[in-house]
């Protein structure tokens, strides 16, 4: 993609010193109002979440009968919700640590696999000449729309009965038990993540400078070599960016985990446990106030620590030297 460089009229440099000084003052004023306004907006944006945070420290009957803002006029502080969520004795509220590990075991490979496969595919679609590649790219792009829900049953069948074609077993049933079911979840998440991953990474890879690629080809580098030594280092920020999205999506996913991992503490992730915490009839929803924050901690840490990468990642795609 080309960046339009507006034509600079001649004599642009002829601006007087006086006006720049005035400009500087104006800029400073601008930046002050910008700071104030952007902080106000950010705070407004956070008010709903803040309400949840306050609520999570209020006693159950208070949460259910008064607004969270009454906390400030009549503070009643308790960590009971957190206690119940983290250390509850019922088989369905305790053992959160166990579910934490499940979430990690599900999320890490589910982020790595699509990253690798999508970057390979995106590279091929962008820089290798083969017949029908544009159509293939468009097809993969369009696959983003296939609703996850419609893919659940066929994929589950694929795992539980295998593939037979004309009486020949191409792939036997997986027959996984307990923690082996993680493999199904990884597989499912990888499938569902690919279209968006290919779309996003293709956007970056295809915008890498053409000269760079051509120079490498002239030097006799093969595609695998270019991919490994030139493309991957350049798109690391983009990989980090997609990695964050995929991490957030997998960590917060409920549907895929519910179907492919089941609800037992051998495999179910945090989200499945949280959804159960509301009780059989949903009347214990005050526990979710604390539960939501517990499950938020890891994604927030990931975002904050990778934020730097993330910003650079999306920057790489839109500039062209």
């Amino acid at each position, binding site marked *: 993609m080309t960046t339009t460089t507006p034509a600079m009229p001649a004599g642009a440099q002829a601006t007087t010193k006086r006006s720049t000084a005035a400009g500087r003052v104006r800029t400073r004023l601008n*930046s002050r109002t910008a700071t104030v306004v952007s902080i106000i907006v950010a705070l407004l944006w956070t008010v709903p979440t803040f309400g949840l945070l306050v609520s999570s420290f209020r006693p159950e009957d208070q*949460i259910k009968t008064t607004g969270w803002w009454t906390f400030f006029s009549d503070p009643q502080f308790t960590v009971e919700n957190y206690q119940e969520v983290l250390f509850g004795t019922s088989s369905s509220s305790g053992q959160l640590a166990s579910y934490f590990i499940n979430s990690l075991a599900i999320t890490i490979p589910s982020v790595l696999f699509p990253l690798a496969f999508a970057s390979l595919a995106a590279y091929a679609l962008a820089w290798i000449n*083969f017949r029908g590649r544009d159509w293939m790219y468009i097809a993969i792009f369009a696959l983003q729309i296939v609703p996850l829900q419609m893919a659940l049953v066929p994929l589950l069948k694929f795992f539980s009965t295998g593939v037979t074609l004309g009486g020949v077993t191409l792939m036997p049933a997986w027959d996984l038990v307990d923690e082996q079911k993680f493999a199904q979840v990884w597989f499912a998440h990888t499938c569902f993540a690919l279209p968006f991953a290919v779309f996003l990474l293709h956007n970056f890879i295809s915008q890498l400078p053409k000269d760079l690629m051509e120079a490498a080809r002239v030097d006799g580098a093969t595609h695998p070599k270019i991919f490994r030594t030139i493309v991957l280092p350049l798109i690391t920020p983009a990989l980090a960016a997609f990695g964050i999205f995929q991490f957030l999506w997998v960590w917060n996913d409920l549907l895929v985990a519910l179907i492919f991992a089941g609800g037992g503490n051998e495999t179910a992730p945090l989200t499945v446990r949280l959804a159960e915490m509301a009780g059989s009839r949903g009347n214990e929803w005050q526990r979710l106030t604390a539960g939501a924050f517990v499950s*938020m901690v890891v994604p927030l840490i990931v975002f904050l620590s990778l934020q730097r990468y*993330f910003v650079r990642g999306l920057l790489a795609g839109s500039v062209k030297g």
Partner: protein
Amino acid sequence: MEFDFAEEQPKLLMLMYGLIAFVAVVGGLLLLLDAVPSWFARRREAQLVAASANGAPPIRRPKRGESGFAFFFMLPAVLLLLIGLVFPAIRTTLLSFMDGGSDNWVGLRNYTWMFSEDSIVRVLINTLVWVLLVPLLATTFGLLYAIMVDKARFESVAKSLIFMPMAISFVGAAIIWKFVYAYRGEGQEQIGLLNQIVVSFGGEPKQWLLDSPLNTLLLIVIMVWIQAGFAMVVLSAAIKAIPADIVEAARLDGVTPWQMFWQITMPSIRPALIVVVVTISIATLKVFDIVRTGTNGNYDTSVIANEMYNQSFRYGQNGQGSALAVFLFVLVIPLVIYQIRNLRQQREG
């Protein structure tokens, strides 16, 4: 808390297997790709030698190895997509011509049902409203905020706050917004923020999610709240990528902020803008959890993905659910055409 580490051991072992499999598969593939080209290289060398022996000029013939490479580069992704998405999509399309139990062919009955049932037509209209408003609002907000925050101090803190909703699971988001839209009778203490504000200005509390079309707009607010962070982060990165000398030159030239925005910022961030709009549009077409936890599609708020889930999984009407899914495929066609045009321009440029 009883926590037995021994019981966690097999899980971590499994995670390790997963990582080993990852290294083996991806590493193996790259190794293979390194082996194949050296074979091709040798062959080409032989061909070149033969060609020069014949005295023919060494023409730059289309590289044969190319499609071979492409095949291996694409293989894992294509295989997984076929199993995980293409096959299910075809199956869904077939099911949409069958009855609820998927036993008999019924022709177009599910499609005529879709367009003749008032409640379903409503669902289709709602989806259109969503897909027009959400990308527009979320992107506009994200863009304005990105421009504003660009000059501000505490930039990363402000950005983190805007981005935070994306890190919250839908289970959490549902409760967050319950505390905003909740309703209590007049004269009682409100637990919903919005009603509290209305009441403190002397108004009457209102049941926000009950009246159409206001309720759809209020649900859209939730989606914008979540997606704006995405738009803002991406666009902010793009703005920072605009070369400083262009901006400085323009400023020295005395362009107004307005001109600056339309003549410099917008053209520069166009690719990022496209990614944002396309991504949010697709996410919106598939929006499901917000409507389900907000109103469950009652009071005329249902959207396609929600209705599709209900029909297929709760009501046992696979045919009707599938027909709705197929309609979703149709809705993405404008985006696909736009992508094709983009791709063409890119190739030509």
